[in-house]
């Protein structure tokens, strides 16, 4: 019996040490990425290429999801507001929910599963097929050439995608609320314009999606770079990217929200 207890304690210790080690590696990885970002800015073509893969190719899923989320908001919001006779505030409800929360959060979750998993798989496979080693043997640092451009592409595209998600969502809310149900168009837009504050709401939303962009891209790139160079290793890393970055987005959202919207 005591032997079993020792084994369990040892296992807890092992898991903890492993976790702390990985956290250390991840911190070192992001530091190196930032230090080697010079190449990305000197050769913008590298970043633009990645912007296409992470940003432009994620547009379809972001826009379609934004539209549907907005439409659902319009529908649900109308039913609740109608009870209090304040349907005219539908525009405010749709816009604030999207700009403050749903836009940054849902688009980051979609970004993690669409672009993040692709980044992990690509870098993991580059490692498994010795492409990263080959690059190093050619005296080219893979962090500068492969990782940094992808990192900046992710960080730049995330707020833009979130903004497009919110815009599409507002349009979806308008379609359902005004066009289908018949809420007054004038009050829908004017109340929205009055209630949404640029600094308080929009800027905070952008800051959120920027933070999510850093977190998701960092996790995706690190998981790929750290993946064991086997089929199993890469598939495990891809799964971990989606799980870890989704949880990170939700956790960070709570922290950011509690700082940004304190009874304002």
């Amino acid at each position: 019996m005591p032997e079993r207890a020792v084994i369990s304690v040892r296992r807890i210790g092992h898991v903890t040490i492993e976790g702390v080690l990985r956290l250390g590696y991840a911190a070192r990885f992001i530091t190196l990425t930032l230090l080697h970002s010079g190449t990305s800015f000197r050769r913008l073509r590298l970043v633009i290429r990645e912007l296409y893969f992470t940003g432009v190719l994620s547009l379809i899923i972001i826009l379609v999801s934004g539209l549907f989320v907005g439409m659902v908001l319009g529908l649900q919001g109308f039913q609740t507001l109608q009870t209090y006779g304040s349907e005219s505030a539908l525009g405010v409800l749709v816009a604030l929910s999207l700009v403050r929360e749903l836009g940054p959060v849902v688009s980051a979750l979609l970004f993690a599963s669409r672009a993040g998993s692709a980044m992990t798989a690509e870098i993991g496979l580059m490692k498994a097929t010795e492409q990263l080693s080959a690059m190093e043997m050619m005296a080219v640092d893979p962090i500068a050439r492969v990782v940094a451009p992808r990192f900046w592409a992710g960080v730049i595209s995330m707020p833009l995608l979130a903004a497009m998600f919110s815009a599409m969502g507002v349009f979806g809310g308008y379609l359902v609320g005004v066009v289908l149900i018949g809420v007054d168009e004038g009050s829908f837009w004017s109340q929205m314009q009055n209630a949404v504050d640029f600094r308080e709401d929009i800027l905070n939303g952008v800051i959120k999606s920027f933070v999510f962009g850093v977190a998701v891209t960092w996790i995706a790139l690190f998981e790929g770079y750290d993946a064991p160079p086997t089929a199993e290793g890469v598939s495990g890393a891809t799964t971990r990217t989606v799980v870890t970055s989704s949880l990170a987005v939700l956790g960070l959202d709570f922290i950011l929200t509690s700082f940004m919207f304190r009874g304002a």
Partner: protein
Amino acid sequence: MATDNLIEITDVNFAYDRRPILTGINMAIPRGKVVAIMGISGSGKTTLLRLIGGVMKPGQGQVKVDGRLVNELDQDGIYRMRRRMGMLFQFGALFTDLSVFDNVAFQMREHTHLPERIIRDLVMMKLHAVGLRGAHRLMPSQLSGGMARRVALARAIALDPMLIMYDEPFTGLDPISLGVIRNLIRRLNDALGATSIVVTHDVEETLELVDYVYYVSDGKIVAHGTPGDMRAATDPLVHQFMHGEADGPVPFQYPSANYAKDLKLEAHNA
């Protein structure tokens, strides 16, 4: 001071996680020669290449490349040295998101300020040397194994290196591609005035090609000599390897418990 040897390895020990991989390695690779490092899988051959390329540093001893101590170079020094090395990886390791042309041009674009017009001519010349000028627009996924290896070879010689390293260049090739690669290794080495190291376990192809052989077993150099010496070697380990015998000093059976005991025959007999 340049000596006759491009690479000199003296008393090198290397351990990975306290597990010794290489012990007491002494090796000299003369300029202009094609030298093979042979041995069974897991004998430490590839680790030797990594030490020469500065990917790993030896725990003890010296690795000298072109008169410079690799273990004392910093990252910049190692990168400067690697610009004068080319390496062919086991399966080519071509960048799958770049075309054949861009793969070969990769180092020229990264390390030189040559105008694109000149890069184009150079890439075409390198591809012509491996017989694949006509394939410059293809993507790596459209190449056969042998073609991919040739493109990777063109990429390895892109900057006219002083040293070309080959990691298992013959693995998984059909006889024609194998012959092509074998001829290319010799022709390119002589044409470029380079020095080549071939890490391999393919006996026949290698002995016909190289000038000198080092035989590595269990992290030690157990024999070295010309291909003729190796064919005639009486050392049982080298003899078994060179003649591909299934059993010998390297046993057929993985170390295991008593056979009868594993089949639970002991109780039955008793």
